[in-house]
Structure formats: structure tokens, C-alpha cells
């Protein structure tokens, strides 16, 4: 994305959301870089939303291959074995997401999340981690904190009745959102 102004195409495409958050926010979105690991369920929703919003780039990490279970809550993967055989989740989601918004640079990063260090994480403004152990999450969290710039760190966990999202914004500390499925209400509780 070159230049300070939004292009004519961007203005037309993002018109409705610019009316929500303003042109300046849209410009800043287009310069931001997001890392997403663990492509299942709620995180897939997030991928869709963040790509539609028009961020600068999205990097996906998930070397898992397609299984029945992973297909179930993933609307980015076509149900065609010819298409999905041999490819990782990240690769498949990448192809799909590029389609959603050609203006976002979507790419795949192979490898184990726990093997990366701050040098890697520093490239991003937002890091979203899911489908991995608590220790991995803590590790990534620590690496992100070492970065010289602010990185927003989100993790997510979801089971039958409880979904948990942990959000750390460097400046503000930690808090947890607890979602009770049956109530349909979403409330904030501090840890």
C-alpha cells in the first residue's frame, strides 16, 4: 500500500466501514501486520473479519492436515479432496482468504510456534494464538513482550460450554473474557 491516501478502489470497497471508524483508522489498518496461529473455529471467524477489514498483511501458521473434525467448523476449506489433499490447513486457508480481499497480503509460515523468537514476532502488530498448549502460549507471550514496539497478543480457547479469550495489550495488562454459551450474554471478568 503506497502513499498516504486511500486509493479510489479502497474508498469504494471500504466505504461502509470507513463510515464507522473513519478514513484514518482505515489507513492505519492497511499498514498493520497480523500473525494467526491455530486455524479452527472462532479463529477462522477472526481471519475472515480481519481480512475483510483490510489489514496490510496476514501470516498464517498451522501445519496440520485436514481432518473431518477440522473441516467441521471451517468455512474456508472447500469440501473437495482434490483440492485439500496434501496441503496444510494454513495453505488452504491462505488460498481462500486471498480471495476474500485481494488487497491483503496473505501468506503461510511453516514451523512450530514455540521455535520462533522475538525477532520473528517483532514483524507483527497483532499476534493471535490458539489450538496449542498453555506453555506455548506463555512462551509466545513472553517473546512478544521482549519486542521494542507494542504487540497486541490474543489467545483463544473454546470447548463445549465455555469460550475464553485472553487479551494482552502491552500497555494495559491482562484481563479475561468469559462467554457463557447458554446465556447468550458476554461479560468481562478480571482475573
Amino acid at each position, binding site marked *: 500500500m503506497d502513499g498516504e491516501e486511500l486509493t479510489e478502489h479502497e474508498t469504494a470497497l471500504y466505504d*461502509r466501514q470507513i463510515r464507522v471508524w*473513519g478514513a484514518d483508522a482505515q489507513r492505519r489498518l492497511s499498514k498493520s501486520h497480523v500473525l494467526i496461529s491455530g486455524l479452527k473455529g472462532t479463529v477462522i471467524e477472526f481471519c475472515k473479519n480481519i481480512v475483510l477489514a483490510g489489514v496490510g498483511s496476514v501470516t498464517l501458521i498451522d501445519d496440520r492436515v485436514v481432518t473431518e473434525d477440522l473441516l467441521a467448523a471451517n468455512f474456508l476449506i472447500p469440501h473437495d479432496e482434490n483440492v485439500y489433499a496434501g496441503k496444510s490447513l494454513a495453505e488452504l486457508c491462505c488460498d481462500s482468504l486471498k480471495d476474500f480481499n485481494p488487497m491483503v497480503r496473505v501468506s503461510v509460515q511453516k514451523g512450530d510456534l514455540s521455535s520462533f523468537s522475538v525477532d520473528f514476532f517483532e514483524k507483527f502488530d497483532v499476534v493471535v494464538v490458539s489450538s496449542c498448549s498453555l506453555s506455548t502460549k506463555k512462551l509466545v507471550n513472553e517473546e512478544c513482550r521482549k519486542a521494542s514496539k507494542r504487540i497486541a497478543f490474543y489467545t483463544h480457547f473454546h470447548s463445549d460450554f465455555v469460550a475464553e479469550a485472553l487479551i494482552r495489550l502491552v500497555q494495559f495488562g491482562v484481563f479475561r473474557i468469559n462467554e457463557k454459551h447458554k446465556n447468550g450474554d458476554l461479560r468481562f471478568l478480571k482475573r
Partner: protein
Amino acid sequence: MASEQQLSTIKGSKVLMVGAGGIGCELLKTLALSGFQDIHIIDMDTIEVSNLNRQFLFRQSHVGQSKAKVARDAILKFRPGISITPYHANVKDPDFSVDFFKQFNVVLNGLDNLDARRHVNRLCLAAGVPLVESGTTGFLGQVTVHVKGRTECYECQPKPAPKTYPVCTITNTPSKFVHCIVWAKDLLFAKLFGDKNQEHDLNVHSKDGSSSSKQTKDVFEREKEENIEQYGKRIYDHVFGYNIELALSNEETWRNRNKPRPIYVRDVFSSELASQNGNLHKCLNGDPPSLSATASLGLKNPQDLWSLKENSKVFLEALKLFFSKREEEIGNLSFDKDDQLAVEFVTAAANIRASSFGIPLHSLFEAKGIAGNIVHAVATTNAIIAGLIVIEAIKVLQHDVKNYRMTYCLEHPSRKMLLMPVELSEPNKSCYVCSETPLDLEINTHRSKLRDVVDKIVKTKLGMNLPLIMHGSALLYEVGDDLEEDEVANYAANLEKVLSKLPASVTSGTILTVEDLQQELKCSINIKHREEFDEEKESDGMILSGWTPPRSAEKNGNTTVDNEVSTSSASKAVPLVAEDDDDLQIIPTITGKKRKLSKVSNETKNKRKAAELHSKNDVVMLDDDNSDMSKKKREQ
């Protein structure tokens, strides 16, 4: 996750979606992922570029195609086994009869206008099918459930009609930018480019009663062979200069108001006029001439505020482009927010008028939003609302009546909650739609014609599509394909008669029966004669009443924004979560067991207290995040 029983209920159900747009795309995806197998979807629209930021089932290559059909194809890619039946049609079409609706277990609305919502509401009531309603604007959204006999119907709480402005405010005394937009769009644009025969007059009437148009032939008519630029300047001077001077001569009007100043072309351009012409003709760098005044003038950023001079340039250039490049359309054009040149013209005209009246100017981007009634929208809110719709739909399919909820999706948490569920109210006993209450109509039966009643009351206020009007056994008016020629002529004649002179004379005390067979809605109207109506406050010349909003509406303080999302002030919508009151509106089923109201209220009380103890920082964080956004909005 869903129980075995839930899953099989879902699998065996047949669902109708009305709308395949912002909410529709998210909803179709969620339904498919949740295991629904038989979905029908109605949408009359085609895909536009501005949809693509949130209607994710569509791609650039789909622009112009049917939303319902493309949505279906996209879903089948990741759920090939399910059945989705698309209808590229208007839900008000008679094909979608009560029998059509009866085949579904639940109807899910994802509409964007009041009219269609009322229509679907009536059909669902007639068919006895539950309806899940929803709406979103920006970060706000809500979902609610309507079940005949058990809950309010969509119309139990009156929804305010779209905002209109008094004629004199638009033509003489604008005080807000929106007044200037309405003037530019509905008067000036319509006069210059649309059908010349229109009701309201652009011409200002001077004190002595003589109108500026009486002197000569129609000032707005371009004379044969008149140079386009001359014509443009002539119009400019007339509406922004001469008409304002004429208005100023009415001293009374300006006694307590700021006087406008007349603006003439010569004031704005002075000595540049001569060289101006040359520049306006140039196309930049040999690009193909885009039909856009801003393009040829180099005004690239739609967020910029133009000066009076720039606005004037755009006005004249746009007018010129219409007459030179789109001449064949003139006389038939109506304003379309996607018509770039029309938007530019209206923006410029509104801004010049605003300048004259001391009203702040607006950018092309802002003006387009106002003139086009554009709803601001993002993907996330729609996704949340879609999820809530499916949650309610599953409850409906299981007849889990006690747990039906209206849920608000808020922008800022209220009492720590972003999603706020509210218990549903019982039907309003005086709702004319679901409870057959008679209405009262005050009207001058010697002056008002049947046509006025049909247009202003029956179609607009009562929302009937194909009405039938009877006085006792006499059919005064009906619409239909199967009418005989003489019947049609008879009804046409009746429309032009004043009420008291109709074949079955309608006077004070008459009871009219109004019906829409398709909506299966019947309504009685008691006529009361009244001589006079206030021209400003009661400009319709008739008052319809008898429809009392239920008590809860007053408590909730619901207001509806233009695009029909009801945004109640959150604290009012949850009045009784407050500590002392046992009479709860919300019943969070914390453990899933049924509890007595008072017991639950104590528990909730405690949980809230516990939450609130940790609340301060959280609230501050969220407010900080959000205050940037609300500031943004204000700046907009």
C-alpha cells in the same frame, strides 16, 4: 455443543431467510455450519462493490449478479450436501403467499427496510410461523423473536416513520446541512434533471404574493441553443442569488433568524471567469473523460472539504457534464447514490446553499452518506448477530418458549455486558396488526379525497400492499390483476372523490374496513370529521390514532434509527437488573435450572457485585479504546 436432540431437530427443519446481504451472508454461513440442511433464501438485490467489505460470500467478479444465487453457490462449496433454494425476487411478491410461508418451521429476517419487515411480520402472523427479527448499524445490533399469541409481533411497538422535514424549512429556512441536502436532491436536482412536473416549488414567493416564476416562462427551462455554461451560471444565480434576495424581502421570516446571503457567480469567481472556461474543458493527461466533475477538476479526495469556490466549480461542471454527455437522460433522472455525477452535483448545491445560510459545509463523502441514506456497516457486528439469530432459531425449533430473548449487541459494555438479553413481552392488546383493534381517523370528509386516505394512511401508515377498502358491504376501492375494466374505472373515479361524496358516503361515524388479502390483515377505521388541521404540525390533513404503545415501550425508551435498528439506551433496556428490584427483566439461567425470580435476582446481584469490584480498570480500558472511535464519529 448441541445435544443429540437439538442436532436432529436442526437437521429436520425447514428455514426461510429473507435477505442475503450483510446479515444474510453471515447467517447462511452459520446455519450451514450448524447443521441446517434445508434453507430457502429470498433477496431481490444484485451485488455491488460496497457490499464486498462484509458480504463475504461475494467477490468482485460477482458484481451485478443475484445475491441469493451467488450466496447459495458459495455455501455449497464448503457444505455440498445441503439444500439451499434461492429466490431472486421481492418478498412482497404475491407468490410468497401465506401458504408459501406455512411450509417453514421458522422465518429469519435479514432485511434493511421497515416496509418489508412489516410485510413479513404480517405473513408470519397469518401463517402462524415464528419470526426471528434482526438489524445492525455499525457496531450496534439486535435480535428478537416474534411468536404469534405468545410474544409481541414486530408491529406491537410502533416504529417511527422515516424522518421528514417541513416544506418551508427546506424551501425557505434551512438550519441544518441535511435541509440543504434535501433541497438539493428533492427540489433542485429533481427540477433540473427529473420530471419537471413536481409538487413543490423551488421558486420563492415574495411578500406580495407574486412568485418569481410568474413573470417569465419557467426559469429552469434551458432555452433552445442556450450555451450550456451560460445556462449553468444562470441557474446558479437564480437559486443562490435572486431567490435568496427575494426571500430576504420577507422581513418577518428573518426577525429571529440569521439572514442568508445571496451568492452570485460573479462574487465567487470575479476576474477568473474568463480563464475558468478553458480549464474546465481540459481532461487530465488524455484520460478517457470520466463522467465526474471532481475528476476533471482534480478534486481527488472525497473526504476533503471544498471551498465555496470549489463547490461552485463542481456545481457548474457537473451541470455541464449532465447536459453535454447525458442529455438523453435529462427529464427522467432520479437521484441515485451510486450515480457519481448526481452525488457531486447534490453535494455542491447543498454546500453552496449551506454557505449562504451559514451552515457548516460537508465533504463529498459525508454528503453522499446523508443524501443516499447510507447505513454504516462492518462484518463483525453482522457475524455476531447471525450467531444470535441461530441461537434463538434453535430455541424456537425446540419450542423452548421461556428462553426466547431479545438480545442487544452494544458498542460499549453496560454493566459489564456487551451482549444484553432481555425477556420478551406479551402481545400488545391494542396492536391493530395482531390484535384486531379498531383505529380512529380524524379527517375533513368534505375536503379530503379517497386517494389521500389510500396513499397516506392505508399504504404508508398501515403498510398495506394490495389494499381493499369497504364501507359496510360497499367496495370503495381495491387492487388486483383480475379486475374488470369497468371496476378499475370505477375505483379510479372513487379515488378522486371527496369522502362525503363517495357512492357510499363516508362521514363522521362511518366505519371503514381496510384489508390486505395477501397479508391477511384486516382493520377497522372509525371516521371522525374535523374541519381544520395545522398546516405545519398536521401537514397530512389527517390524524390516525387508537394505537397505544404498550407500557414496556415507555419504560424501555426504544428509539429506531433510520435503518430500523432499535437502539434503546442500554441502561433503560435493563432497568431491573438494579440491585433492589426483584422484578427482573433478565433471567440469566446460570446453571440451566429453573429458579424462582427472587432467588435468581439475588444471585445475579452478587455476581454483578463481584464483577464490579474488579470493574474499574476494565471499564477504563474499554472506554479508552472506544473513546477514540466515538471521537472519530463526531469528527465525521
